[in-house]
């Protein structure tokens, strides 16, 4: 199960926040095929957002083939975005964690690390769209 965190001041459309957080959970393996997403009722009761927003987000996830509505039962994860090594306890994460530690020891602040990471990603995945959107397209 996943709990959504809605930031009303982020400037990102609310339904997009739900889509992104779901994908993030799929990538990290927090959600796996067969898992049930919370019902619209559960989401709006906890977050006080418009129910149509949740339905719109779920439709979007359905369109991308990530979830599947089963009438009367709920919405279920049909495909994972987790890749070998990208999980929360995968070796790539551990390596990255070690690298971030070295960066911190070298005196880099959080923003420096983020900027460095963004610039490397920019070089690697050459599109104007940005790394997150790019990897999604690669998956779809």
């Amino acid at each position, binding site marked *: 199960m996943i709990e959504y965190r809605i930031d009303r001041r982020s400037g990102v459309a609310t339904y997009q926040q739900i889509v992104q957080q779901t994908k993030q959970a799929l990538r990290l393996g927090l959600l796996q095929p067969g898992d049930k997403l919370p019902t619209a009722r559960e989401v709006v*009761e906890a977050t006080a957002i*418009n129910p149509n927003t949740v339905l719109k987000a779920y439709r979007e996830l359905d369109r991308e083939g990530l979830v599947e509505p089963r009438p009367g039962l709920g919405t279920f994860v049909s495909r994972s975005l987790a890749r070998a090594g990208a999980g929360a306890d995968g070796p790539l994460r551990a390596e990255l964690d070690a690298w971030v530690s070295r960066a911190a020891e070298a005196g880099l602040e959080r923003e420096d690390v983020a900027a460095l990471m963004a610039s490397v990603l920019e070089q690697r995945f050459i599109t104007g769209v940005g790394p997150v959107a790019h990897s999604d397209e690669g998956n779809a």
Partner: protein
Amino acid sequence: MNNQTVARPPAVEAIGLGKKYRRGWALRECSFRIPAGRICGLVGPNGAGKSTLLGLAARLSSPTEGEIRLHGESLADPELRRSFAYVAQDKPLYRRFTVAEMLRFGRELNPRWDQDTAHRIIEQGQLALDARIGTLSGGQRTRVALALALGKRPDLLLLDEPMSDMDPLARHQLLGTLMAEAAEHGTTIVLSSHILPELDGIIDYLLLVDAGRIRLAGEAEEILDAHRLLVGAGTAADLAAHTVIEARQAGRQLTALVRPEEQAIGGDWEATAPTLEELLLGYLRSPQAPSLCTAEAGQAVAA
């Protein structure tokens, strides 16, 4: 939810609605539709006519001209009265009743009474069932009034400034409960407010009332999409091709809220979509700006 809205008649429909008090017209020539299943924000400054409009919808007073229909019905038959709930700004409750007695009162008056929902709302606020209404704070009384309204299991919920006297936690809880109710039963909710940020993310339908007239009516997203906030070097004359709602000049920089007439906006303008609050404030600061009513909210063809 959307499938239902197509088949059902509009939850609220006003046709040439007007209300005159001794001091003058409180509402004039109001025509709009709120489709069933929407969560509609009724916004406007103090004294704009919001409460008058809700009072007319709740059949507390009769219009001076025109009419207001609920679910396609204009008559005040008892069945219709059961189908909606109205929470007034002053939350009239019996001060000497206890919370439990107030709930029993609701149960006996309403055949569709949902005790679980009513109880849950009371429990959320940790109100004692034996507390007398008269000893509760304003926000707590609001909670009891909303428990009574939701316990009625209405198709249409009319709320006049429901959260104005509640603390942030209570407000969040109650909005969550309202949204859950709408998600589960397709309840139409009309809530008035002058606290604009409170409505962002909650409402999907918008009704802006100002000086007794309807200035904006329709799907919130559609209305927002029809507007752009422009910032750039220029003067208001450069924007003559568009409908300018508001333009403010600071030195060489012009900030303008416009309804673009064509897709592309020429010139070196930085164009962004306005937030709900920016849009509403822009309209309220410019009383002469033309009103906008989307097709869905538009006037009935045959009155």
